């Protein structure tokens, strides 16, 4: 009782205030208020404001005295006590029965009035128009989103908490061929390959814990379909925060199986020979590089080059050649040890790379391979016994890089080939040293050509008619800063082997033209009338006339100032093509000489059709003059004369030879006894003196 008095006292207000509040409540059009009273054990409405009546559709007089149980049919029996509590206010959301019997959903606040027998009950309809509209909008959004994800072709997961999925779309179900119900919760994790699951969880966890900064995560993982097949996918996770709920993620999954397979096919094609299926040179280099450790000495390479493969191609056709390569590739694969790599190096060359093998072991393997290759093969009705020249190299301390190893076994193979085919050669240290020295020399030669360190000397050529010097032959010289003078017989073949001959030839051509122009300026009429330039067989192509012409133009020379010297063997390689080039040169106006005539296997018939101006009699025939054998020299000179060609006799060492050659009818003479090769400036001085002697006899 004391407590109740205190409560009453606390809420006491002046009567006019109470009246004002009551008036406001009575006429409120937003707040429905009822007062319920317990009379004789029955709870009844004893008062309602206007809004209470209008909300429930009752006239006020009908509402008052209405049993409370009639208004709240969902609170059956004793449950009315749950709403109308004596010691505390209660909030509930309930349907309230209106006069028409239709329920009106209301949020209800029932507040006990001191005394324990009355309650004021405030009703607020939860179904007002604004709320309905908002709810409808939210529902529409939800449906749109649901439709979007449901029908999206992109497999999508939606987690509302942790790893537990609340939603998977049809595309994901189709991807793993499992029904949605089995994937919800943590079921989807069973579809992730066990080896990849940790990564997926790790990434999803990182995204979950990433807060609302929009953090994303991506991970590649395999999915296992219901039939056990695997798909490789990329999971992309995005953080998803729902206010009042917590954090989840949205996962989209991209199936990259086909793309990876395509990329793998491309990578395979890039690294494998399409004919034999063997790894190609690129993969070989990668394979050796990845296993090569300097000083380790665990690798060995076996280089095979098929002997006489060209004969097979030329005689049986390329299809048969390909068939042979495929057969031999299979034999190689079947013969090597597990783990050894067999690669097609190119053409008819194969390389086998072995690990953890001694030199003897590598040689034994090479022998086994040789035996396997020699087994008969039937191709186009012909039985062949293929053979290969084999080079073997085992890694030593001298190998500092992976490519050294392959290069050395290549050298060893060439040695085997040079020694007579069908052999196995192990590269020893002397051969390796020689080969490396040669390689260094090639590099130095390339450098020398680029830096114009290759110089020219000029040997005068004399007319037999009056003994005057009428021309020079330009001769290349290489003064190596360390090795000293290197003979043209060394560096010219080296340039031809290593693809440098074109550069060398262009250098000599340009330098000779430059020198001729310089002499013209310096000596005027005393300058040599013509310079002979040697051209390698490898330069004899359609580009040669253009190179010659541009050199002449560059230095302002008339084409008649130049004579191009070609060996007869160069001309006879492809006489038809050579003739076309020579015709162009002739049209240009330069002279053409055949060098070393008589040393090769010249076809005299072709000679007749080639636009040649001059034959050079080889020094070996000239030397025979001293032994009393002038026959060949005489015959060459006579042949030239009969074809209307002039002749230059090379290697004239004595005055007797000069006289004899003059007597035989040679047009020009060239040799040490007459004049040695001179540098450009020395030649200028020499020609100046000669000219002075000619004009002032």
């Amino acid at each position: 009782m004391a407590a109740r008095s205190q409560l009453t006292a606390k809420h006491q207000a002046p009567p006019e205030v109470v009246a004002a509040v009551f008036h406001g409540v009575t006429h409120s059009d937003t707040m429905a208020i009822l007062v319920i009273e317990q009379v004789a054990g029955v709870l009844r409405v004893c008062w309602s404001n206007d809004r209470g009546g209008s909300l429930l559709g009752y006239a006020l007089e009908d509402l008052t005295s209405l049993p409370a149980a009639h208004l709240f049919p969902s609170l059956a029996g004793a449950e009315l006590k749950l709403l109308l509590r004596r010691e505390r206010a209660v909030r509930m959301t309930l349907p309230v029965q209106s006069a028409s019997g239709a329920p009106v959903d209301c949020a209800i606040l029932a507040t006990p009035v001191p005394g324990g027998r009355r309650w004021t009950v405030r009703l607020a309809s939860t179904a007002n128009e604004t709320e309905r509209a908002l709810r409808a909008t939210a529902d529409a959004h939800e449906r749109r989103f649901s439709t979007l994800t449901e029908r999206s072709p992109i497999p999508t997961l939606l987690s509302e908490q942790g790893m537990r999925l609340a939603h998977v779309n049809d595309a994901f179900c189709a991807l793993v061929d499992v029904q949605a119900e089995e994937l919800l919760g943590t079921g989807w994790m069973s579809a992730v390959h066990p080896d990849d699951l940790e990564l997926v969880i790790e990434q999803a966890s990182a995204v979950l814990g990433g807060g609302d900064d929009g953090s994303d995560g991506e991970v590649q993982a395999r999915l296992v379909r219901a039939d056990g097949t695997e798909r490789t996918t990329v999971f992309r996770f995005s953080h998803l925060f729902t206010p009042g709920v917590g954090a989840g993620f949205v996962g989209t999954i991209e199936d990259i199986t086909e793309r990876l397979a395509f990329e793998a096919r491309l990578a395979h094609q890039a690294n494998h020979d399409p004919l034999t299926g063997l790894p190609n040179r690129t993969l070989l280099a990668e394979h050796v590089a990845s296993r090569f450790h300097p000083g380790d000495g665990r690798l060995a390479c076996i280089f095979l080059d098929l002997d006489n493969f060209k004969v097979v191609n030329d005689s049986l056709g390329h299809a048969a050649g390909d068939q042979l390569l495929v057969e031999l590739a299979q034999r190689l694969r079947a013969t090597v040890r597990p783990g050894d790599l067999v690669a097609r190096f190119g053409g008819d060359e194969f390389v086998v790379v072995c690990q953890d093998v001694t030199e003897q072991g590598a040689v034994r393997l090479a022998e086994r391979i040789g035996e396997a290759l020699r087994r008969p093969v039937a191709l186009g009705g012909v039985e062949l016994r293929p053979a290969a020249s084999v080079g073997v190299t085992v890694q030593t301390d001298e190998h500092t890089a992976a490519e050294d190893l392959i290069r050395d076994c290549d050298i060893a193979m060439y040695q085997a080939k040079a020694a007579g085919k069908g052999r196995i050669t192990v590269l020893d240290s002397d051969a390796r040293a020689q080969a490396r020295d040669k390689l260094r020399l090639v590099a130095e030669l390339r450098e020398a050509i680029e830096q114009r360190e290759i110089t020219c000397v000029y040997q005068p050529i004399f007319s037999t008619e009056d003994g005057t010097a009428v021309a020079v032959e330009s001769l290349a010289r290489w003064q190596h800063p360390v090795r000293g003078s290197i003979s043209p017989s060394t560096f010219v073949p080296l340039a031809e082997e290593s693809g440098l001959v074109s550069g060398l030839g262009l250098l000599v051509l340009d330098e000779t033209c430059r020198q001729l122009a310089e002499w013209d300026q310096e000596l005027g009429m005393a300058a040599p009338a013509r310079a002979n330039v040697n051209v390698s067989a490898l330069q004899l192509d359609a580009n040669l006339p253009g190179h010659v012409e541009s050199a002449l133009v560059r230095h302002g020379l008339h084409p008649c100032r130049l004579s191009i010297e070609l060996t007869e063997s160069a001309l006879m390689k492809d006489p038809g093509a050579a003739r076309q080039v020579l015709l162009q040169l002739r049209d240009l106006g330069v002279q053409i000489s055949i060098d070393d005539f008589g040393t090769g296997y010249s076809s005299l018939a072709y000679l007749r059709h080639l636009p040649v101006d001059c034959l050079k009699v080889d020094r070996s025939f000239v030397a025979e003059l001293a032994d009393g054998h002038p026959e060949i020299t005489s015959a060459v000179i006579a042949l030239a004369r009969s074809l209307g060609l002039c002749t230059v006799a090379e290697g004239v060492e004595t005055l007797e030879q000069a006289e004899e050659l003059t007597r035989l009818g040679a047009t020009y003479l060239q040799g040490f006894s007459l004049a040695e090769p001179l540098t450009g400036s020395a030649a200028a001085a020499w020609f100046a003196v000669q000219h002075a002697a000619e004009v002032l006899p």
Partner: protein
Amino acid sequence: MTASAAPSLAPTLAVAPTFDLERVLASIDSMAAQRPVAAQIVSVANSDQASAKELSRILGADVALASRVMKLANSAFYGMRGRVTSLQFAVTVIGFATVRTMATVALTDLDDESRLPEGFWEVSTSLALAASTLAPRFAERPQDALCLGLLAQLGVALLHHNDPIGYADLWAGERSFAGRRYAEVQRYGISALRLTSVALEQWSFPAGMVAPLQMVDDPASFQGALLRSCFEIAGRLTDDDHEDIPIERVSCGQLKERDVLPVLDQVRLDAEELRRALLG
């Protein structure tokens, strides 16, 4: 609003002479004073402004509850495999509703199995897992459904706390859920499920969680269909003598019998794990 089938009533059950519903309702209020941290969690977790940071800060003051949250977050149920190392992340992983549910469990002493009828948690975890699994079919959020399932029997605990012997007899004597509800009304004037709804409403749980509790016995109500279906599934899982009711009927046509089998397997598999994670 009563169950569709007339349950077999135990004639010996009579209204408990000493039972006072007012006292039970009053006890709901007094619980908050005994576990203030849990009460605070229950109070704030439902707010749109709730954040993992704030909830974890409050949780930190109740070591027992915090460790349960950590344990649950790292349980197989959430699939995180031990990656949850902070309380804030744990709250993020299990979600605010579940944190609130766990706080409610603590608040109402549901974690003290000695004060509960036998098999209480076996039923509750079955209800929860079935609700979580089936929720998408009823357009409900699995996590909310999980919480509803976990707390649905809160009223059972309250009745049992206030009338241990009488309620234990009722529980043992009437195996079917509908039958129990009928018996509860007979004995206490209110069903345990209704009591749950009152408690949850009093603690301002969302209406979406309260309404199914009120509608479960109306066979035409779609709102009560998920929970009704879950009671049927829990009955099949926990009661050997359970008499099956066609699932299509209790689910308002949302489920077919063929849908139930995988759910039964899944729930059977996870229920014990969830119970251990919840109760520690």
